[in-house]
């Protein structure tokens, strides 16, 4: 790749994804300062390894994967005392989000936030990649550097733990939804006659 080609490729990736990576970082760091650090290091990595960045849509999960490692390094760089701060920080953020969320559907958002904050780091990351970044199972596999099957299993377990935490917090179990028509994956999709009310993850 020539110099101008590198520049053009990076410019495209930066234009399409820098805002997404900033959002990802803000969701997972303790301050805008830390988030800025993550964005800068993620794209500095992308610039250095521009030939390794996958083409098209796959660039996005690749960048999320880099950002995830940058966040992890950032956390490892702190002393043990701040581990508690991390948890506290997340709970505060969750509480802030809860305070802003609408409450007209009967769900107790503050209790949901409490249940979510109590989950292991890996579960929160996985559920966030689905719920906040809106990633598919394939994309999550790229981010986490594991197989799609592993994502499916981990996601199922994370949801189980989340459901148990919600139950313990006294939050009613949300009604199951019918799987979307789009994004059909014949390799893992539920059989046609699976009852709608069955947990879609368990049905697979």
């Amino acid at each position, binding site marked *: 790749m020539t*110099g101008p080609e590198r*520049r053009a490729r*990076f*410019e495209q990736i*930066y234009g399409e994804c*820098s*805002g997404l990576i900033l*959002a990802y970082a*803000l*969701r997972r760091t303790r*301050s*805008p*300062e830390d*988030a*800025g*650090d993550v*964005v*800068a290091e993620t*794209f*500095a990595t992308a*610039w250095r390894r521009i030939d390794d960045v996958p083409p098209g849509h796959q660039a996005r999960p690749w960048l999320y994967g880099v950002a995830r490692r940058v966040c992890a390094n950032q956390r490892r760089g702190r002393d043990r005392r701040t581990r508690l701060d991390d948890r506290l920080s997340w709970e505060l*953020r969750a509480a*802030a*989000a809860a*305070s*802003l*969320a609408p409450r007209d559907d009967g*769900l107790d958002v503050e209790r*949901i*936030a409490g249940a*979510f904050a109590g989950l292991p780091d890996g579960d929160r990351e996985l*559920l*966030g990649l*689905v*719920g*906040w970044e*809106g990633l*598919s*199972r*394939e*994309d999550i596999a790229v981010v986490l550097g594991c197989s*799609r099957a592993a994502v*499916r299993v981990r996601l199922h377990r994370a*949801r189980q733990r*989340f*459901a148990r935490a*919600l139950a313990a917090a006294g*939050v009613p179990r*949300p*009604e*199951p*939804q019918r799987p*979307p028509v*789009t*994004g059909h*994956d014949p390799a*893992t999709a539920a059989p046609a006659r699976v009852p709608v009310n069955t*947990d*879609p*993850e368990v049905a697979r």
Partner: protein
Amino acid sequence: MTHDTHPLDDATRRLDPVDADRLAAAWEDSPARAALFERIAVEPVRASHRASRQARTTVPRARLVMVTVLGVLVLSAVGVSAAGLFADREHDEGRMIGPDQAEVEVERLGADVPLPPGGNFDLLTQELRANGVTQSEKGFAGMLAYNAACQWFSYWYGAQAEGDTAVAAEALRTLHEIPSWKPYASVDGGAGGDGSTVTAMRKLTAAAERGDPAPVRMHLEINCGPSSGWDGPTRSPFGPGGG
């Protein structure tokens, strides 16, 4: 492509601490977006031409890059952010300014940019002295201009929030003048190309002119901080009142 859906996902989505749409809009117009791109993709190309000048800095290169990039994105962190917009440029041949000279140089170079009533560089000076970064004179001047611009945007934001139209109009007049400030005018004559800081400032000023405080607030929260007069309820977009 398999999108897992589950009843619990909606619960997760409701906990999202980031308003993605607002953030995306603010990021699109943020000076930090252009500055970070330049720092990563443009500056390294020029680096080979200024290896000798790098030796003039008293801090390691990596540290300088980190401070400037971070600072550009979130000025509040160290208060030296705008140096990333100006420092170490190809034509930046000014002398270097260390933290021990910060107070004197703020006094001298700060005279080139106006401050709103009640504005000052006191906190910035404290941060500069504590931070220990040495930077070029042009970078230093650019940093002061950036900080002063933040103070004016903060001044405008406060006035419009209080419904003080006269003060807001006064602030708006100054916002329009930002590109003509000496440190900005010295870069491309203040014209500001696509993605430049000046262009981003103009977009923010345009938002202020049409009475839209949201982009200005997001700019203040992400790129400015207490040292530049922004003392909102939080600098974080997910804090109370910030989302």
